[in-house]
């Protein structure tokens, strides 16, 4: 209850500051519309915004799911195989040297204007944090557990699966929490570069037609989507994996 109250207080303060800025600076509504105007547009254009929001949400969720699965698998591969580590990890780091933004036009060229170029963008942007967070955790298994497994006569594969992976899940979770915030960025960039649907597309369209209130309404929905996604991922991670691994090992 107090948490809900705190969130409401923060939101109210933010809206108040927003309105104060508009009123005191005398900003015209084609530069920064007030919250009242944005929310009334949000209501009147709700069907339009919802349609585009659904597209963006699909892209984000697909990118998040695929990126998390790919990151999970890659980190395990790196942890299990020194050869893969030597050969592929430098490529992983190098891939981060190329700004994902710069790849957007290429992905649009290859994958088209539809859903998949945006899914690929979201995937690319979250792949690194998920993989490296999980990999680091896999390499930091408390040595006592590994020694116990060795004395017990465990095969390396089973030690990986039964001890190192479960112990590293908090690391995977922290990568996933970051990914929940990054994935929408990837999808929106993808939509800016070339799309006919989605909140990013709607914002560009509204901007072009000087519908700044609609642009802000789409932005508000996008921010809410991201917050919701982060809260959902956070809650799931907390429920599944908190209280494990090195942090809780005595």
């Amino acid at each position, binding site marked *: 209850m107090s948490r809900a109250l705190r969130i409401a207080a923060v939101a109210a303060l933010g809206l108040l500051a927003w309105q104060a800025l508009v009123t005191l600076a005398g900003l015209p509504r084609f530069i920064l519309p007030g919250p009242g105007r944005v929310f009334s547009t949000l209501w009147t254009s709700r069907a339009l915004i919802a349609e585009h929001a659904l597209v963006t949400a699909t892209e984000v969720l697909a990118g998040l799911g695929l990126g998390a699965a790919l990151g999970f698998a890659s980190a395990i591969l790196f942890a299990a195989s020194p050869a893969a580590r030597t050969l592929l990890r430098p490529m992983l780091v190098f891939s981060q040297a190329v700004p994902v933004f710069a790849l957007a036009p290429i992905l649009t060229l290859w994958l088209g204007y539809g859903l998949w170029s945006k899914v690929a963008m979201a995937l690319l942007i979250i792949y690194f944090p998920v993989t490296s967070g999980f990999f680091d955790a896999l390499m930091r298994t408390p040595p006592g*557990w590994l*020694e*116990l497994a060795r004395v017990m006569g465990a*095969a390396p594969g*089973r030690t990986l699966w039964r001890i190192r992976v479960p112990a590293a899940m908090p690391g995977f979770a922290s990568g996933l929490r970051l990914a929940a915030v990054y994935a929408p960025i990837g999808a929106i960039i993808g939509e800016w570069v070339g799309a006919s649907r989605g909140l990013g597309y709607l914002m560009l369209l509204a901007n072009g037609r000087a519908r700044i209130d609609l642009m802000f309404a789409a932005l508000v929905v996008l921010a809410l989507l991201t917050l919701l996604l982060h809260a959902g991922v956070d809650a799931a991670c907390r429920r599944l994996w908190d209280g494990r691994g090195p942090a809780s090992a005595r």
Partner: protein
Amino acid sequence: MTAPALRVAGTARIGGTTVFGPVVLEAPGGRWTCLLGPSGVGKSSLLRVIAGLGAGVAFAGEVAAGDGAPLDGRVALMAQDDLLLPWLDAEANVTLGARLRGKAPPRARARHLLAQVGLADHAGRRPHALSGGQRQRVALARTLMEDRPVVLLDEPFSALDARSRAQMQDLSAGLLAGRTVLHVTHDAAEAARLGDRVLLMTAAGIAPVDPPEAAPPRPFDAPETLAFQGGLLRRLMEAR
């Protein structure tokens, strides 16, 4: 299961620094041997060499079982840290070895062992819901589950309060009877209670000290136990 004697002779180094040795350690088969010594003398490193965990330590010498067969797969280890996996309940922790070897977990036997260590009602609890003493009992059940003739104990009771420690000592002495136990400790009272054989490890090497006649676990308040404990402590103090 006949428990073999243990013999270790040699020197261990990390880089150019001597960790211990040259030492000769002999632990009779099927008996409880306490290896007592001050911190930093290399007791734990010696135990780890026997367990085959000497990574980073160069050991020159021999580690042998009295029956001539290799020690591989005949050793169980219990450490000061209970090493329970926090995401598994007590029963699953006890059967960890079987899972790690790809065998079906022997659940009935795990429950029996948990009952033996007094945790029959706690099989479904995770480590965070157990006290330190209870966690160490689960670790003892896990060690017994391995059913190895040689059991290496690395100060397993030293983090417990005095009462839990005495209880764990009695429990372990009963349940590990008949196995070759090598128990590393820095506690003279513990060595005086538990050792069939007591070895004092100092920088000068390993020397046996004859314990009282009474069979372990000896009463902690018996005059002979206390006198022996006092004597051990004096030798510890006088060691370099």
